[in-house]
């Protein structure tokens, strides 16, 4: 009995450490970031950040928390553990989303108000260059090798391919209306681009720069106009994609090989961005109009919990501690 208890305790302890993580959620209307403890799944802290925080990511092996403070025209850097403010990075006007080079530097920032992508060295805090793209740049994705960057422009309706060696655009692929997000498959062979108004996700072959498929959605009882794909996340094994469908209040689970939707998971309202936990067992969704995040069990494909955060949760990132 005692030994069983001890084993139990040991198991609990080990899972606790293995599963330890912290989720950070930007609240667009509150100018705050909610910090969620992964063990208790509760908001443990809410920190004040710049105005209209949207895109959020980690840098320096998770030590830095980077936040697009869109209305302050800056990217803010916080210590991810202590939550102390470190510095501001130049971002160009109205930074919305960004992506870090796989080597950890530089940072590529979409400037929604200015038709450019700004490239910033996060150590020196210097703008390295600006890349001219279409109207209202938003989605940012980079291949695992760090050689190809894709930016989507919402009003131009294109995925712009950028060569990271030269920082020049090389190809412009038309997709459906209002492309929001670009996500590479883990093998770097495809990039998935969600089109919010078009209601589809285009799959583009990275080698040929040609669209090779499209994911479409149909949900009984939900008007097609309300199905608006935004955030996309693909599992590390490259098998499954999770796609946030905005005001359809669902996350679609898609088989990457066949591009068929396996299931729709009902989450909070206007689901926007997604983030896996480090062990990829759970997925966080930000639900803009219901002011909460939903947590999805990735194996069972079930929504297990919702956690109330601030107003208009927008972006989410999870750190492995």
């Amino acid at each position, binding site marked *: 009995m005692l030994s069983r208890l001890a084993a139990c305790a040991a198991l609990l302890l080990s899972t606790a450490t293995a599963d330890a993580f912290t989720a950070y959620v930007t609240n667009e209307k509150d100018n705050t970031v909610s910090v969620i403890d992964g063990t208790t799944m509760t908001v443990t802290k809410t920190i004040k950040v710049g105005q209209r925080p949207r895109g959020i990511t980690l840098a320096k092996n998770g030590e830095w928390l980077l936040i697009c403070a869109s209305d302050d025209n800056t990217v803010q850097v916080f210590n991810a553990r202590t939550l102390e403010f470190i510095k501001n990075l130049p971002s160009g006007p109205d930074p919305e989303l960004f992506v870090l080079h796989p080597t950890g530097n530089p940072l590529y920032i979409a400037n929604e*108000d200015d038709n450019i992508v700004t490239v910033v060295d996060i150590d020196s805090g210097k703008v390295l260059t600006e*890349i*001219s793209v279409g*109207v209202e740049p938003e989605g940012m994705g980079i291949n695992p090798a760090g050689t190809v960057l894709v930016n989507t422009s919402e009003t131009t309706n294109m995925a712009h391919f950028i060569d990271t060696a030269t920082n020049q*655009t090389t190809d412009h692929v038309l997709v459906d209306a*209002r492309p929001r997000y670009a996500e590479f498959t883990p093998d770097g062979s495809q990039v998935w681009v969600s089109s919010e*108004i078009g209601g589809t996700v285009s799959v583009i072959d990275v080698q040929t720069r040609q669209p090779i498929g499209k994911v479409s959605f149909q949900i009984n009882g939900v008007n097609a106009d309300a199905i608006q794909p935004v955030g996309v996340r693909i599992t590390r094994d490259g098998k499954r994609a999770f796609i946030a469908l905005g*005001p359809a209040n669902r996350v679609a689970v898609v088989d990457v090989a066949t591009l068929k939707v396996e299931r729709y998971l009902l989450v909070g309202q206007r689901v926007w961005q997604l983030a896996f936990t480090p062990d990829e067992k759970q997925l966080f969704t930000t639900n803009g109009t219901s002011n909460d995040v939903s947590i999805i069990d990735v194996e069972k494909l079930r929504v297990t919990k919702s956690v109330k955060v601030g107003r208009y949760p927008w972006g989410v990132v999870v750190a492995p501690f």
Partner: protein
Amino acid sequence: MEECEARRRIHRSRAVCALAIALAVGVPWLMGGPSGAHAQSPPATPPGIIDILLIRETAAKPAPLSLLDIPPQDEGLAGAKLAIADNNNTGRFLNQQFRLDVLADAAPDVLVAEAQKRVAQGQRFLVLAVQPRTVLMLADALKGQDALLFNAGAPDENLREEDCRANVLHTGPSRTMLADALAQYLVWKQWRRWFLIVGPQPEDMAFAAAMRRAATRFGARIVEDRAFPVETGSRRADGGHEQIQQQIPLFTQNAAAHDVVVVADEAGQFGEYLPFRTWDARPVAGTQGLTPASWHPALEQWGATQFQNRFARSAGRTMRPQDYDVWLAVRSLGEAAARTRATDFSAIAARLRSPEFEVAGFKGQKLTFRDWNGQLREPILLGTPKLPVTVSPQPGFLHQFSELDTLGIDRPETKCRLPARAGPAAK
């Protein structure tokens, strides 16, 4: 395959005669555009040109009651300029260039004669910011020619109904769309008893008729219907606040029990006097108070913030509904040209009329044209002067094909009989 080839051609060559072409055709994105690091190398083949003609009827309108409502000189034009810039930003990646030409005059005859001349010279796409009669004059004068007209402003129902024309698309909402949008919200609010106050102008009567139709359609009742007499030098409309403060309560006295005052005063001659002055404490909606429109200058949803900012930077003021209607017309052309990668009239016009056509307009859903009369389906914003209040269609107003078709005259009711168009009939 063709697309692929074209793109390769574009990319092959970039740097070579960049400057020469830029100087020759005045490519806007190189002139005063970004320098050095993020300058986009242009294609070597000359871009395909898409010319758009904006026609503005500049007849004097009566002065508005409020100094805040004096229309800007470039109303509509500013929307066209922004859309051209947006189109060109996309066009530079597709080797397409959009050019705007403007025709402005107070006399419809002059506009028609000049438009005919321009079409003979090769103009194909005309965006109209003109009076309803002038829309018909232009449509008839250009009938059968390679010219497509966009009515961007005249809300008159007859242009979409008995007087509909095969060569006209409408990007501004019709009066019944506006009235239905407002009515749905009033019914959603359970403000079902309406006190209708109607001005003397034909447009006022038309708006009132649209509200009466909407009441029947959505289950509201007009419990009181009064005509507001406006005459030049009228005792009611003139004078300082002392008189208005006496006259409006008097005019609205002894009305049947009502939930809301609905005012029909498109000319803006008295409606602004109603809020806070009615005999009974009731909200005012219609052409003043809570108003339906295609655009609101403070809309921030659906990415509209960036759009509003872009407009403000380019025009130096906030966006008005007519700017938006014109922007949508020019953007629709840009969208059709981008999707077809074409610059010729027939391909672009066919795309605009095809069931595949859709355009994003910062309203949270795709906008499409009704195939039976060329009217753009679009959500309608209801707002007070400072802020949007809601967006119609309202929840619960359902439709078998598109909820946007709960706004305005629907397919089964239409009086428009256009010759059957190519392609499958839209659902």
